[in-house]
């Protein structure tokens, strides 16, 4: 089995754009960094969603019941965002702990 969107693209009679519009098939990449990556035990995962998801919903879908820590920072497509933001097809979501550079 390949990923569902690739499989759909390979069926020439189906207009994928229309399917995306009608049934909300969203491919989303989720990345975790630093100590948070170790806490959730994941580096990067991809999900296919059939509904519009907020960042909070994505966390709960991917992190197996681990509560979303209050201090966690989040980004969509490398721009800071908040937990209520809605994710679109093709977006890259990132979760990470407070930064400590410099």
């Amino acid at each position, binding site marked *: 089995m390949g990923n569902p969107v690739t499989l759909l693209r390979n069926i020439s009679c189906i207009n994928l754009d229309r399917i995306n519009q009608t049934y909300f098939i969203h491919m989303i990449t989720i990345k975790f960094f630093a100590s948070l990556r170790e806490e959730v035990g994941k580096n990067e995962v991809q999900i296919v969603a059939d509904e519009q998801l907020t960042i909070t919903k994505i966390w709960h879908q991917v992190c197996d019941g681990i509560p979303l820590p209050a201090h966690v920072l989040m*980004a969509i497509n490398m721009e800071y965002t908040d937990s209520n933001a809605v994710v679109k097809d093709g977006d890259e979501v990132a979760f*990470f702990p407070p930064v400590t*550079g*410099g």
Partner: protein
Amino acid sequence: MLVKITPNEFNPWKHLQNHELQAGKFGATATFIGTMRDYNVGDTVKSMFLEHYPDMTEKYLQRISDTALQRWDILDTLIIHRVGEILPGDNIVLVAVWAGHRGPAFDACRFLMEELKAKAPFWKRETLVNNEVRWVNANNA
């Protein structure tokens, strides 16, 4: 404006020398250099690993450089930040601002450094002399 992330040791003085604008065009150069200490919260630190979020880091540093160039009367900015495995004494970050006068140069340099510390996606993981490994979870002023 230049933003550079490097896994290699760098000499900030050499970068400053190479980056300087044409003589006579600027009157002030404000710089900040951050260097790795061999101690942290009472423990001796042997080495440190600097993780970052590739592309988001560069994007964020470019954005704050743009903001500084718009907000202050300055001529140019430079940010170099180390990633990967580093040792005590290694330089971690260089922030430099060139301007006609010291006021905007100091202010913009401080702004860039504070914004970098607050939001640029870097994370430090240090190894102590007893080989304990821990994430640094606070940014001191």
